[in-house]
């Protein structure tokens, strides 16, 4: 009996002496090169977008903390991460006022609603992104090509739309620059609506120019690898997401190569890499059990490919992650390791609520929440 029999495990136990601030700070560090390259790609508009969105997030967070609505501190860097990620998912020429709306919604609806840092159920950046995607579908679909001449001196005109007003259409501006209106479509949109597939090198670095792509996937992978190596992030989730997306895409590609694009295109187009590395790995919104992480990642990968192929939108990562966020408590529950002594049976008991009618309408003020049974035996302080 020399082997340890007892393994007590519950919500995240980080063995190293890392505080939340340390982790968050390193995530911000790792995001900086990506932002820098993004600004290099799109110029002054991208810079303004990143600044405005992040500022909106910080201001909202500050207001809500000072009114006591939400827990947390401004110095924990979490709002900065939300702002940076949100800005990276928006088109560079996204009107600044809409960016501010996205930032406010991200923090207020995605985070403060649930009580602040660590309690959010959905990734705040994605809540903000999904909100503006539904609210301003035209603006969010207008991308501009990267590496345009004069990008450091001139704003993309749609950026500077007056608050609450409609932005100028990107198509006219592009026409004035002698560019095809189609240059403004992302690789995914081009594939989905026109059947044009982008080349591998264009996707990987977007250095060949004139492609409307988001932040460079290769760089994101590099920065993600840094985080994973320093153990600031669990490597299982990105691996599971990319693996399951590649597998699904490969199976479909094998079935009908003319109709479906190759897995490589699937992985490196759109926001899949960014989502897999930075969004899905948000600790508060993903399962803590290793098995749960695999399930969670696989679900995201599968849903992404399904939405991209079969639904009306070209991009699906955001929705896949949001749905998986909602399912993550469920996944966690199913994949909970069996407590010692309970045996590996199906019929093992869990703490449960008694079934009583008062439970049906908990909204009513008079109804009381039944107490969890095991809480009764908890020693009183």
């Amino acid at each position, binding site marked *: 009996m020399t082997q340890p029999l007892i393994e007590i495990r519950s919500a995240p136990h980080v063995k190293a002496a890392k505080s939340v601030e340390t982790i968050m700070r390193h995530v911000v560090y790792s995001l900086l090169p990506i932002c820098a390259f993004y600004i290099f790609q799109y110029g002054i508009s991208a810079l303004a977008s990143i600044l405005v969105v992040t500022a909106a997030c910080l201001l909202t967070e500050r207001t809500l903390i000072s009114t006591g*609505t*939400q*827990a947390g501190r401004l110095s924990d860097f979490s709002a900065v991460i939300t702002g940076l990620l949100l800005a990276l998912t928006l088109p560079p020429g996204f009107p600044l006022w809409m960016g501010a709306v996205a930032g406010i919604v991200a923090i207020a*609806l*995605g985070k*403060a*609603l*649930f*009580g*602040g840092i*660590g*309690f959010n*159920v*959905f990734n705040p950046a994605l*809540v903000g992104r*999904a*909100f503006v*995607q*539904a609210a301003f579908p035209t603006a969010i679909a207008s991308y501009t090509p990267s590496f345009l001449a004069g990008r450091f001196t001139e704003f993309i005109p749609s950026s500077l739309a007056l608050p609450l007003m409609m932005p100028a259409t990107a198509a006219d501006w592009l026409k004035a620059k002698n560019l095809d209106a189609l240059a403004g479509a992302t690789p995914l949109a081009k594939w989905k609506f026109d059947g044009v597939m982008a080349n591998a090198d264009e996707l990987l670095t977007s250095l060949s120019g004139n492609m409307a792509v988001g932040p460079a996937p290769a760089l994101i992978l590099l920065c993600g690898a840094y985080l994973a190596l320093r153990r600031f992030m669990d490597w299982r989730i990105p691996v599971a997401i990319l693996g399951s997306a590649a597998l699904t895409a490969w199976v479909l590609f094998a079935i009908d190569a003319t109709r479906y694009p190759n897995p490589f295109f699937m992985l490196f187009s759109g926001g899949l890499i960014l989502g897999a590395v930075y969004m899905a790995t948000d600790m508060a919104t993903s399962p803590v059990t290793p098995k749960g992480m695999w399930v969670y990642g696989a679900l995201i990968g599968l849903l992404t490919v*399904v*939405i991209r192929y*079969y*639904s*009306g*939108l070209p991009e*699906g990562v*955001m*929705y*896949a992650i*949001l*749905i998986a*966020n*909602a*399912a*993550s*408590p*469920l996944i966690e*529950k199913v994949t909970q390791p069996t407590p010692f002594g309970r045996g590996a049976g199906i019929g093992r008991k869990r703490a*449960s*609520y008694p*079934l009583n*009618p008062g*439970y*049906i*309408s*908990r*909204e009513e003020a008079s109804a009381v*929440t039944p107490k969890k049974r095991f809480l009764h035996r908890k020693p009183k302080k």
Partner: protein
Amino acid sequence: MHETAFQIFVNTLLANNLVLAMFLGLCPFLGVSGRLETAFPMGMATTFVMLVASLCAFGLNLLLSYFHLEFLRLISYIVIIASAVQLVEMVLKKYSPSLFRALGIYLPLITTNCAVLGIALFQTAREYDFIQSLAFSTGGGAGFTLALVLMASVRERLQLSNVPDLVQGTALSLMLAGILSLSFMGFAGLGG
């Protein structure tokens, strides 16, 4: 246009989810989604009632349109649904008392679930044939269950977090439903 049964099923399950896109069955959705243990059985019971009601409504509609009595449709549907719920209750009581005990308090609630009547009305309005109606009602029921289970999963977790007092209660549930509905928008156009 002829939609295949599979398209209808996927469409009602995800893209046009009864609860999150059509706003049907919201009362039980907000009321019973507090715990997973109750959400899932409730979803299954509703699905079953939907199936029964949809099939009855299909037959009834044939009968009514044969006699040109379309103006009696609504009143007969509601009676049929009430009877279907009663029937399900009696059958369960006889053949599966344990399930009946587990569901006992929820079964009568299903009568006033507008999702059930909605299924019957929409399938008539869209002129679905028998197979299509079958797919529509099972898809609708599965979608209802899915929404309920996801919502319960989230709400169960929120019991452990310090949600601001101001938001507690229905407002929180509505906001959550809104975010879920937002995430389901990604499925728009699915099954087309």
